[in-house]
């Protein structure tokens, strides 16, 4: 039952790792069969196009262990410098975390607590609004195996799984034969709601092309129909979808035995944001007056769901948590990474497995570039390039074990394929934490909480 049993040596220098886990997207498929030749994965059976790109391109690159101000340095020296930067900051930000193990995430939380910083994850710029919506109306949801075994009506909303989560259809939501849907795809009705007629439309029975920024209105209209409220045909001008179509969809939703809405960032990143997610969560909830319905955000990065869980169990709040007062405080918009950077507040950053320099707003990028930062990443990125200390790390799931939470909160173990000469996030973060603790305990530094920062 240990994680080593899955690897067999088939020939000298050739290993096969079964039931390995792909951590590229939130599907966290754990049925990979990896063929490993030396320090390269040469085959990735069961992997999708993204998974193959993930496994084939994370080989060991010849880079220094770390860079300090752009100059090559060893790990020890870099960890010393990282601890100094974080200890001397008054308003440090820890950010990223969605592409590393929960074991490493836990240490990042410890560091942020000890230094009294802010911790935020990539959640705040993907499904953070859905997290806020969840706090408003709750959520009726289920594990992906429930979708596989029971769902006879599936709505994809504001997402393009065919390109972003390529195996979702085949492994979980559309194609598989399940216990109560024995004929697989034939037993299911699939609807795609999006502003673009993406590749995913081909997989759906119905495509509803919603007008841009009208998702909220569409969800509200469906809620009204669920309740039996009469709607004016002008709903078509508002949403782009005729009343007749809406009624037909609602009829199908009510007749379903088990429906599910899988929604993407088309809802959370556009006008309305958490209100859009809230409307969709409320719709799925309301449908339980008729039959069973669930909703689920399609989470992106491999372990973003783990990050939500670790931040929540450590602090009580899911993301955007301020620990500078000596206890956790939560306020999206105030303590979220985009905001503390764009407002020019953070004075140092610890960034783990994320690249805000390439995907944050322009004002946030401008500020981040100018403050001292400690960056952990297996690959070179714009963020690593501008870092004061940039660590080269091994890759989770390929070189290091640990735990990853799938988009439905199911925790899955990793089975590394080959060793890396580089340290893992966990090892580096532990090294930084122990340096910080050593200084704090030895020098009896005043508790950061006492400063009331």
């Amino acid at each position, binding site marked *: 039952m240990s994680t080593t049993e899955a690897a067999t040596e088939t020939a000298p220098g050739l290993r096969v790792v079964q039931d390995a886990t792909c951590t590229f997207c939130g599907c966290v498929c754990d049925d990979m069969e990896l063929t490993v030749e030396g320090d390269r994965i040469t085959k990735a059976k069961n992997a999708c196009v993204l998974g193959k790109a993930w496994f084939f391109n994370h080989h060991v690159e010849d880079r220094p262990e770390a860079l300090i101000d752009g100059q090559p340095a060893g790990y020890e020296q870099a960890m010393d410098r990282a601890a100094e930067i974080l200890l001397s900051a008054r308003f440090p930000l820890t950010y990223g975390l969605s592409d590393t193990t929960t074991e490493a995430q836990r240490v990042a939380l410890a560091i942020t607590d000890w230094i009294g910083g802010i911790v935020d994850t990539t959640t705040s710029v993907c499904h953070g609004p859905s997290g806020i919506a969840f*706090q408003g109306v709750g*959520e009726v949801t289920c594990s992906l*195996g*429930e979708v596989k075994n029971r769902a006879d009506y599936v709505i994809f909303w504001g997402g393009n799984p065919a390109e972003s989560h390529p195996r979702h259809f085949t492994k979980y939501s559309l194609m598989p034969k399940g216990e*109560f849907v024995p004929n697989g795809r034939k037993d299911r009705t699939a609807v795609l709601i999006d502003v673009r007629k993406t590749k995913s439309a081909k997989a759906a029975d119905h495509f509803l092309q919603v007008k841009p920024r009208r998702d909220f209105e569409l969800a509200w209209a469906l809620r009204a129909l669920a309740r039996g409220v009469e709607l004016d045909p002008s709903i078509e001008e508002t949403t782009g979808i005729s009343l007749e179509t809406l009624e037909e969809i609602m009829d199908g939703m009510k007749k379903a035995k088990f429906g599910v809405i899988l929604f993407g960032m088309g809802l959370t990143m556009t006008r309305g944001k958490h209100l859009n997610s809230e409307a969709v969560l409320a719709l799925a909830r309301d449908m339980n007056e008729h039959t069973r319905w669930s909703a689920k955000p399609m989470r992106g990065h491999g372990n973003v769901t783990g990050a939500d*869980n670790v931040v929540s169990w*450590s602090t009580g709040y899911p993301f955007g948590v301020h620990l500078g007062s000596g206890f*956790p405080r939560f306020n999206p918009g105030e303590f979220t990474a985009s905001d503390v950077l764009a407002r020019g507040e953070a004075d140092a950053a610890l960034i783990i497995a994320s690249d805000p320099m390439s995907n944050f707003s322009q004002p946030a990028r401008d500020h981040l570039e100018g403050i001292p930062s400690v960056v952990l990443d297996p690959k070179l990125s714009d963020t690593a390039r501008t870092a004061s200390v940039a660590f080269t790390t091994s890759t989770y799931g390929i070189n290091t074990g640990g*735990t990853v939470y799938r988009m439905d909160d199911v925790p899955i173990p990793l089975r590394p394929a080959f060793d890396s000469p580089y340290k893992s996030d966990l090892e580096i973060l532990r090294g930084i934490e122990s340096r910080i603790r050593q200084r704090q305990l030895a020098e009896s530094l005043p508790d950061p909480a006492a400063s009331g920062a």
Partner: protein
Amino acid sequence: MSSLRITGGTIYDPANGIDGDVGDIWIVDGRIVEAPAEPDASADRTLDATGLVVMPGGIDMHCHIAGPKVNTARKMIPEEKRTAEPVRRTRLTRSGSGGSVPSTFATGYLYAGLGYTTAFDAAVPPLAARHAHEELEDTPIIDKGFYVMMGNNHYVMKQLAAGEPGRLKAYIAWLLQSTKGYAAKLVNPGGVEVWKSGGGNVHGIDETVDHFNVTPRQIIQGVASTVQELGLPHPVHIHCNNLGLPGNHATTMDTMKSLEGYRGHLTHIQFHSYDGDPDDQSTFGSRVPELSEYVNSHENLTVDVGQVMFANTTSMTGDGPLGYYLHQVTGRKWFSGDTEMEAGCGIVPIVYKQKSLVHALQWAIGLEWYLMVDDPWRIAMSTDHPNGGSFQAYPEIISLLMDRERRLEVLAGAPAAVSDRCTLKDLDREYSLNEIAIITRAAPARMLGLAHKGHLGPGADGDVTLYSPDDDIQRMFELPRYVVSRGEVIVDDAQIMRDTRGRTLYVEPEYDPDAVDDIQAWFEKTYSIQFRNYPVGDHYLQDPLVVPTS
């Protein structure tokens, strides 16, 4: 070798027949030992306990502190957390948030601060066992473990329907080993599956579960007998069908009767002792007298209470349809989470109000249970944290049990009809310190089959709580003078002195390895993860301790 001597305390150690005797306790390397024979023996450290009350560390046998539903609840209630007293970071300890669902670090410190050194999460879906262990690892100081939900497990139901007790036995043992769990838990057996498969619930123990051709009675008896055959330290732990519904006393009585010939633990029994019409909340009342009479005369049964206290709290349960019911009753936000092949989950924030007839009756019904079960060894203190209230309410409950006047004062502030519908005002019993030590330490340890806990005899864990006697009983139990865990002083005058890691307790019942093929075949057809990735590896366990089966 490190040693601690606690000298001159007034000791309450009911398991060893010690009721308020003055004496010394010696702890060497974390375990209690006989006092040395030499009169001038000394220890590395001595605590002068003169005038202090000394008890074993507290044991919470039924609470919700780790795993997916607890963590979902944390995420869900920022409005409550914002106003709750936080746990501040110190030089030695991590920060956390408080309220009805504290963060993990806060949970460990708060339990320790109350003199509790052991706690069990009562409802973990097997698929999330790894998650529960990760959280428990981040829950400092206390020893811990969890119960594994299996009352709506498809494989369990299939083997019962097929008349395959051998496969059932192998599966339960395999499941406990795979999850590194401590006990078998049934939550609304069969009813959660009905909810998951199209809505609704079962309403009695002889209704048939759709698709599975099995009744709750069969699940209860099948798992109870299997747990007994496996020799697990704790008997089957049952959350009965129809929780919270007026008139559910009949289902509870049926469940108790169905356990004749088996050992069984009925949990949060308060929530299952109601009179009235299920469709009419105004008919609500207590049926504790007859149910407690049944428990008194049937030694195969133990209970914990699930006391309701008047406060803001969060209902969290593996009972999916109950979550929906609470959402409809309260109109509050609702989380529901169905786990494939295994379980459900419901979460709804709730406020228990003294002025509400139903809530005040629930409070009174809980107290009736404490006061009407004659033998304190068969009843354990619980609030079903946080369902009836927080574990932080235990000192207040202790004061209610030890002080009849205080109960009557609270009753006076509740609707007058409460006294017509229950017997609380007529109950004169007041608990002694010895009886408090039983229901908060010795009895839960015995129910859990933990020979090394809940007492202060040689070989026991060096977990000791020392209280300063106080006329204000609640204050006495809220602020222990010292708390000792494994022979180390963890709490001194309300300050956490050391941030230690507790132990994970679990069981490893044996099973026939040939039975695994059938489990694997079923698993690979139904689950969404790989069979090999299901069992929890040893490295997830913190200082693990396997509690032996008999």
